């Protein structure tokens, strides 16, 4: 047992190197820059490559090259940079190249601000690039999970030969908590499909072009089948006292931390409140929602975006239960008390009893 106090962003890089990552191509952006800075320190020492690219467009295409050459590789960015990377993410999914992308989210649209929002949900979870592809998305809510889910992200990326996004808000990236790491480093391995400049790999081809319509359809169907397998096998969620919950709180990242405190306080007041925290955003943990819906009367989705997670929750429940919504944006965070107040209203007054938040009224 050796727990170290560390920023979430730093934990990502250390976990990545332990997981065998030997390539990092990045471009600075707040609040993700610590990842790039830590990579500049540790990747070369581990015998890997660190390179600061001229843009996020170049960075993701360098990742394409590194992955094609058969090395575990990653990049890190935030909202505006992830927007620029969408081209490369689509190409990597199309060419079936694994990589890990850390998105430490900030406020948007446009330049927005550098405070925490969760408004990258759509562009990351739904796939912001062109074509029929998905990215697998992991949503850590603690520094320990920044480390653990980074390691998982590399495994999933290799297993599905697909980009995996680690999506955390600026709080999770910037905060420090104790974290423990595996004491054994994973050795880098050369996948058989890579193009490594050797006789054995000479006949390999990395490409996403399928000129014939039937061949492209077959390729897209094969990708689709892969995502279906991932949906069956990889969905993860944390369920806290949902088994007898009347009101189920739903949130990820820093919001889930706030919801844990709210749920605990509500329970202490005798209210039957539980928490369902998606850990994978794609695949979405639909089964956990089914399970919770057996008992629950209403779900309260809390997010730092204007109803992006909300859509997936509604799809998961498919009208079976009421879904209420509370959000803050712009870098503001739902406060403990405003969520608790809403929970009390829902617990006592039934679904839909809560008044809209003043912030929402201002938007309308």
């Amino acid at each position, binding site marked *: 047992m050796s727990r170290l*106090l560390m920023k979430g962003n730093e934990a990502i890089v*250390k976990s990545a190197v332990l997981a065998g990552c030997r390539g990092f191509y990045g471009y600075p952006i707040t609040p993700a820059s610590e990842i790039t800075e830590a990579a500049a320190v540790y990747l070369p020492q581990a015998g890997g490559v660190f390179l600061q690219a001229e*843009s996020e467009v170049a960075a993701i295409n360098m990742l394409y090259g590194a992955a094609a050459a058969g090395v575990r590789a990653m990049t890190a960015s935030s909202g505006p940079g992830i927007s620029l990377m969408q081209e490369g993410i689509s190409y990597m999914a199309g060419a079936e190249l694994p990589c890990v992308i850390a998105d430490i989210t900030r406020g948007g649209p446009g330049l927005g601000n550098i405070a925490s929002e969760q408004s990258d949900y759509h562009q990351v979870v739904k796939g912001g690039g062109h074509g029929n592809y998905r990215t697998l998305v992991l949503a850590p809510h603690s520094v320990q999970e920044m480390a653990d889910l980074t390691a998982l992200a590399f495994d999933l990326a290799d297993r599905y030969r697909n980009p995996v996004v680690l999506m955390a808000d600026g709080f999770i990236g910037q905060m420090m908590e104790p974290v423990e790491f595996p004491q054994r480093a994973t050795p880098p391995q050369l996948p058989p499909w890579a193009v490594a400049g050797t006789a054995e790999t000479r006949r390999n081809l990395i490409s996403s072009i399928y000129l014939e319509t039937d061949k492209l359809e077959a390729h897209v169907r094969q990708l689709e089948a892969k995502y279906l397998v991932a949906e069956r096998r990889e969905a993860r969620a944390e369920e806290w006292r949902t088994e007898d919950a009347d009101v189920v709180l739903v949130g990820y990242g820093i919001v889930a931390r*706030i919801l844990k405190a709210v749920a605990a306080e509500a329970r202490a007041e005798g209210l039957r409140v539980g928490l369902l925290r998606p850990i994978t955003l794609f695949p979405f943990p639909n089964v956990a929602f089914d399970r919770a819906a057996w008992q629950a009367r209403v779900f309260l989705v809390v997010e730092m975006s204007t109803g992006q997670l909300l859509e997936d929750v509604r799809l998961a429940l498919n009208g079976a239960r009421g879904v209420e919504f509370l959000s803050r944006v712009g870098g503001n965070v739902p406060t403990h008390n405003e969520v608790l107040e809403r929970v009390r209203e829902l617990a006592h007054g039934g679904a839909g009893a809560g008044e809209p938040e003043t912030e929402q009224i201002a938007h309308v």
Partner: protein
Amino acid sequence: MSDQTDLDYIVAHSKARAFYPTYERKEELQHQTHYCPGCGHGMVHKMVAQAIDELGIQDRTILISPVGCSVFAYYYFDVGNVQAAHGRAPAVATAVKRTRPESIVISYQGDGDLAAIGSAEILHAANRGENISVIFVNNAIYSMTGGQMAPTTLMGQASTTSPGGRTPAEGYPLHICELLATLEAPVYLERVALGNNKQVAQAARAVRKAIENQVNGLGFSLVEVLSPCPTIWKMSAVEAQRWIHDVMEKTFVPRVYRDRTQTAEARPAPGPAISLEKVPAMLGVAAKETPAAFAGEGAATAEIDWQVRIAGFGGQGVLLLGEMMAEAGLDAGLEVSWLPSYGPEMRSGTSNCHVRLAREPIDSPLVGHPHVLVAMNEPSLHKFGSSVRRGGWVLYNGDDVPPECERRDVHIVARSFTHLADELGDARAANMVALGAVLEIAQVLPEASVDHALGRLVKSPRWLDLDARALTRGREVLREWRGEVCHAE
């Protein structure tokens, strides 16, 4: 010819070994390329393949094919193949080469791909002096997409998107070799042409040299090839060749723009990687043997939950104060969290952080209603003073609390920590005076854990000594204050 049996046609000249005998990746007509009659790509492909043969690098070679007519270069080259997004081949090539330094990476691009959408990638790959070989085929037009204007289209030249001929309003032909020759890093830049047989022979030499430079580790080499496109130019193959020589060369002068092949030296290879066993230690995450101290000695089972907010000006050590508490708490076996305000606030203006120390796992790291507020300046007192829990503590870095911040339901300790620190030798130790007072209030962190945190976060001996004295002074301040309270009561 022995490796090309079972063909239903006769090859008059033997093909380079770096080409596949038949093009099985191609849907139909697997004995011929997809290029139009008279297209320059066929000739340039042959030059590349012959160079690969001559240099004996077939197994090591990785070809990066672009978007454009040569997107299917991988149909033909029996080497490792990576197909890249439009314009991004130099970025892809960069990472392939850096990942596999023993490989020979050839980035093959057309003029729309390289000079328009990929202008940033080629400029920066060249500027970094990537040890790659770039073959840049310039036919002054977008051919694959049907003849739109390229950045290399000549003045007056008609295209489907400059139907009246290119004018200055569409910009001028971009001279890539001249542009890259302004950079320090490139080793070899040459423009060649396919205007006649003599030029073709020179082009073949240049292509070989660009690849050989990489084999020798010399750095970035680029060969620009003025290349015919009879189909889009609407010319016969012979006319197209002649047009290169008579017209195109007037804008794009074939010559050597940079040649440091004789003087360039191979960049030193990076040192050998450390062994896997040493990676955890290198990362500073290797397990330590020392057991954690025990928090709140004598009260190991008592509930601990301290929520602290620390705020002040940037530069007052507000974040460090919080980190010190968290580090000491971790050493004492507690659950801890530290959450900073971040961004421009770090560089100027105000700064604050949330700290929690608890026995149980911490749910929310956000501290909305602290037990203790350390307000290192008056704005912080105004901003957060009212958020402190009833019965909590406000430590204010000032001797007088502004009347509007007075509260009767919390303990307010108002002393100028800055002044006290100044008396100890440096006003900048005010944060540690404040920390001393917090420690005296919370009483959950053993001295040893605080010493450990101090040792981990403060490296200079002078500061270590000063900070230790400041912590002691802070503890005294609180004891004095308690005395005052008792006295008052």
